């Protein structure tokens, strides 16, 4: 698994206890489980703490612009549809500035594996709130706490047309690897939302200043979708696989088939 790390850059830049390292850990286990060739993987990231993940993996890596990773990834995928394209993004990266590209990539059902590293904050810029922070959160740009409701990333992905949608947390590390594996395997637009702790900016201002405390919250305040715990505690965030559609055509395949047919008709 460590062969997939660019070891010369370790220790990485993330804060002590940052969940993004745990996501990277799970991702590399998944890649190893799938036995993927490093030369067949392209990682495309945007800007933010989440995006820095691409510097640490020994794949083809493309560190792009805030919110635009999916657009760059679309160009890579359309040109080389056989490559595995993994797109880790932050919550603001994916769903604020990147929101438009997110819904269109989902609409197309283009075969990309999206990991939303959701720490409900803009970490790299010092702790501003994001569209996934939710109401009542303290952040540097919400000193009186937020009035902004949050997206439900799972519902947004589902509504936009994603064909594999899952949610887990950095506490649920076995689930994390499983879902990432399934997401990479899935041929279509896959989204795994991973609740990740930012103790430095989110936790410290919102009553959980350590990684351990934040992880405990991930454990206490989530429940497996369809479980009795979920049923009895409807206020909990649900984890699991919410969408798995293998019928809807994948974009590159559909395009290739359509132009083939289009050219054929003319002869």
């Amino acid at each position, binding site marked *: 698994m460590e062969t997939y790390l660019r070891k010369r850059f370790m220790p990485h830049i993330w804060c002590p206890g940052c969940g993004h390292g745990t996501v990277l850990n799970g991702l590399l286990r998944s890649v190893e489980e799938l036995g993927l060739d490093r030369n067949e993987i392209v990682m495309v990231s945007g800007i933010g703490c989440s995006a820095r993940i691409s510097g640490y993996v020994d794949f083809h890596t493309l560190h792009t612009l805030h919110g635009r990773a999916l657009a760059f990834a679309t160009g890579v995928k359309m040109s080389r549809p056989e490559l595995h394209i993994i797109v880790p993004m932050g919550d603001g990266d994916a769903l604020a500035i990147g929101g438009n590209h997110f819904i269109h990539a989902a609409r197309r059902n283009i075969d990309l594996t999206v990991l939303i590293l959701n720490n409900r904050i803009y970490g790299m810029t010092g702790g501003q709130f994001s569209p996934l922070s939710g109401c009542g959160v303290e952040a540097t740009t919400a000193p009186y706490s937020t009035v902004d409701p949050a997206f439900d990333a799972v519902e947004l992905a589902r509504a936009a047309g994603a064909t594999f949608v899952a949610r887990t947390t950095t506490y649920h590390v076995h689930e994390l690897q499983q879902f990432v594996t399934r997401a990479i395997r899935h041929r279509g637009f896959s989204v795994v939302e991973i609740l990740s702790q930012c103790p430095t900016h989110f936790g410290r201002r919102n009553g959980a200043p350590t990684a351990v405390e934040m992880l405990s919250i991930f454990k206490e305040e989530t429940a497996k979708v369809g479980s009795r715990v979920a049923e009895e505690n409807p206020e909990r965030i649900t984890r699991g696989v919410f969408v798995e559609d293998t019928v809807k055509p994948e974009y590159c395949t559909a*395009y290739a088939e359509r132009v083939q047919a289009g050219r054929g008709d003319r002869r």
Partner: protein
Amino acid sequence: MSSHSETRRLARIDIGPAVTKDAPGTVRFVQGNEVCAEAALYAGLGFFAGYPITPSSEIAEILARRLPEQGGSFIQMEDEISSLAAIIGASLTGKKVMTATSGPGFSLMQEALGFAVMAEIPCVIVDVMRGGPSTGLPTQAGQGDINQVRWGTHGDHAIIALTASNHQNLFEVTVRAFNLAETYRSPVVVLFDELLAHMRERLRVPEPGELELVGRLRTSVPQGIDYHPYLAREDGRLPMSDFGGVHRFNVTGLYHDMWGFPSTDPAVVDDLAHHLHDKIELQADQIAAGRRYALEDAEILLISYGTPARSALQVVHEARQNGQRLGLLELQTLWPFPGRMVQEACRDREAVIVVEMNMGQIFHQVQAAVDERRSVFLANRVDGRFITPRDIRRILRIVEGQGV
């Protein structure tokens, strides 16, 4: 015939090689946008991503049909930002790529343009200019984007921008844009205006092999040996390696070392800043291109580019017929600004008149380039209508002290 009429017979103007039925190659009667699309295909275009915007949409429409015929692919993205981002991604897989837009879309592309500059990614961006600023005049010509092409994206950077005044030229210039993009590992902008885009004119399609093509330069470093994506060869070119190939490296918009990894080391940053600037700016003379008409003994020099150059050429022709010593320098490279070419052309003239359809964007560059700043004048038109020979002659008379 009334001497005031613009409809009198125009002097025969040589705008390119003679086209006879014996000349090689297919002759077509097409609009400028189609010329640009076909030239891109001729140059080896493999991927196009774009978004509809008047007056460039035809380029996307034609390539949507033609690219798959040649084994390439096309995608209509959700906006111009993602269009440029997508072609940058595709370029990294080894394809020749292009997008096309107009002023408002080009404004949206500025951030991604800076990324392509910083990460040294070959790509061609077509900006079919219309009246601006803002929504401006969607269906009418203007030349207001010249400075934006040079300065629109933030930070110190260099850029290459080419233009043309007729369809034959436009074909060659578009092919040249792909060649320069590969040679300099840089985005290259092809700038022309709505008039050229939508008017129909004769084009002799060059035969395969007739125009030189520069291919993607790939590294010869074998698998397993360290490859440096940002290490220049002795001749200044930077060999690339395709994503999905045997070399894994990083591409970023941050300042980076020769492996592509982020760095804030002052020596690294200084080197890269100079490299990005010098690789183009110090090659300004090599990149410069222009056409000269009746320059030798010209007392008054017109400088123009794009479709207004056609009116300027008309003025020169008629003036010469009347014994007046006028000349025209038509610019085909706008950036890096061909300062030396302009300075030499302007030497010892009584006056220089820059003809353009904006408030004097190239005019200021010419002023800065010449020895006699005060003898440079602007003949412009910014009402959405084509600048005519009459408009230019009016300014010429004023410059000559003869009133209107």
